């Protein structure tokens, strides 16, 4: 017989009490950890989208629906396309304050080889590009050749493997980092490749979704503004000076999403705190209620020769052990939901959702762990005090 065994028996042989406390600990740690990771993933997602676009201003054809289409491409991964005259690129280069600019051409494949789904194909200019190449996680050397493509992280195609688009075998030479957005399922190619794809589609009788060639049109232009220039002013100048286009600040395009996100993050935070406080209160009530039930047990221990300190330690250790186990289970459950199903959360919520890295996640796990193993023992301090001060002589005389 040892104190440790006594502790073990007390936990194992009172299954109902143990399960009730365990359950509270599990709910608490799962809520704190899951909530923190969800909040962080949303924040991560929008940050990565903002960085990923890399541009201060995006220029699109002038029509409300085009902006919505772009947002859908970026956030939902819904393939889309729209065009404007290619000369606009040159006109834009002349606008005062424009530092770098790069045009992109959007094309939507009717279907890809394996699955009957549409793929967003983005033609970009290898030479001027500043918004695709910085995010290559597996880089290709030199420039993008004919029938060579770069794929988003969400596509299963591996670097070195090929992907058949309109019957054309395209070799994946690069893969981009994950953004947690619709950009992850896009295919990036040079203008030459896009031209080939359109030709291939026509020759196969597949109705191409656009008859316009990248020789004549572009879909959007990404602009980086020179240092010292006001981004809003440059955008306003473009809107006033060039017909048929709209210049949108990247930030303002993401504002709607950011607002939605801050509401969700706020709700998650409130929820975490509510669960935490509620669990703490329930624990406090449970422990206090247990004092009366366990008085006799502790009086016996005292009579047998347990010191007050040992009695208190006994109560605290029981709580601590249950909290430790509960925290581990809770974090495991939350992990099993939040990490594997992150893509589902993203597609269902329409919000960029990018799980934090291992270190950050471990940090949140430590936070949830700490929250539980502090709250539990704190909630039992009072009952530990009461039980260590039981009036042994009186309680043992009270009979059973």
């Amino acid at each position: 017989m040892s104190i440790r065994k006594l502790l073990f028996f007390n936990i194992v042989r009172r299954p109902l009490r143990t399960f009730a406390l365990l359950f509270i600990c599990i709910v608490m740690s799962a809520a704190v950890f899951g909530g923190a990771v969800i909040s962080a993933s949303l924040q991560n997602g929008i940050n990565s989208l903002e960085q990923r676009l890399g541009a201060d201003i995006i220029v699109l054809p002038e029509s409300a629906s085009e902006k919505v289409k772009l947002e859908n491409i970026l956030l939902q991964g819904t393939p889309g396309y729209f065009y404007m005259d290619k000369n606009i690129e040159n006109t834009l280069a002349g606008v005062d304050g424009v530092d770098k600019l790069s045009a992109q051409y959007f094309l939507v494949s009717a279907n890809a080889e394996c699955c009957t789904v549409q793929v967003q194909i983005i033609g970009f200019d290898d030479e001027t590009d500043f918004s695709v190449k910085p995010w290559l996680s597996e880089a290709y050397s030199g420039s993008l050749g004919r029938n060579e493509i770069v794929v988003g992280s969400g596509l299963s195609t591996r670097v070195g493997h090929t992907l058949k688009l309109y019957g054309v075998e395209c070799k994946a030479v690069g893969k981009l980092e994950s953004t947690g957005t619709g950009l992850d399922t896009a295919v990036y190619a040079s203008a030459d490749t896009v031209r080939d794809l359109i030709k291939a589609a026509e020759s196969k009788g597949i109705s191409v979704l656009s008859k316009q060639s990248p020789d004549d049109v572009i879909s959007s232009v990404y602009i980086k503004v020179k240092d010292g220039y006001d981004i809003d002013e440059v955008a306003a100048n473009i809107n006033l000076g060039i017909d048929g286009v709209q210049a949108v600040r990247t930030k303002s395009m993401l504002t709607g999403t950011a607002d939605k996100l801050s509401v969700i993050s706020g709700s998650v935070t409130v929820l975490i705190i509510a669960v935490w406080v509620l669990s703490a209160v329930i624990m406090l009530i449970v422990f206090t209620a247990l004092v009366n039930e366990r008085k006799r047990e502790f009086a016996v221990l005292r009579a047998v020769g347990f010191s007050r300190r040992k009695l208190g330690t006994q109560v605290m250790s029981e709580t601590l052990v249950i909290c430790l186990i509960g925290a581990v289970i809770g974090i495991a459950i939350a992990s099993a939901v939040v990490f594997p199903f992150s893509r589902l959360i993203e597609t269902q919520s329409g919000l960029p959702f990018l799980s934090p890295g291992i270190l950050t996640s471990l940090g949140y796990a430590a936070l949830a762990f700490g929250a539980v193993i502090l709250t539990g023992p704190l909630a039992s301090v009072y009952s530990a005090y009461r039980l260590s001060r039981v009036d042994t002589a009186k309680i043992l005389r009270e009979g059973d």
Partner: protein
Amino acid sequence: MKRLIIGIAEGIAALVLTIGAFTFFKACGEHDGKFMACHWAQNAVVLAGIVLAALALIRIVVPNDNIKTGISIGIFALSAAVIFIPGTTINLCMMDDMACHTTFKPAVIVVSAVLAVIALADVIAGFVKAKKAQ
């Protein structure tokens, strides 16, 4: 009694895996009479799920404790293998925002991992009991 509860838990997890794989967390399904790549992964999971459910049933019915433990070792091994069916052994669809990636794969991984853990717990409980009986 304890082992009966574990056995029932195994059975439930195996049934959830089997039925779920073609209902509430099914893969992408067919389009225009064509099956997508992930369909075969789904079939494999359903087949494995049926075998697992059958094993779990035998595990509950058989009276001998050591045979129970043996069957649970099998359940553990098979359910651990099922974790690697979607995406690793059998390809899923091309884009990771499709149902086979967002729902089917994570659900199969989680359910079969849970089943593997339960089976492992049963194996350990079986060995402990066998040792005590000696």
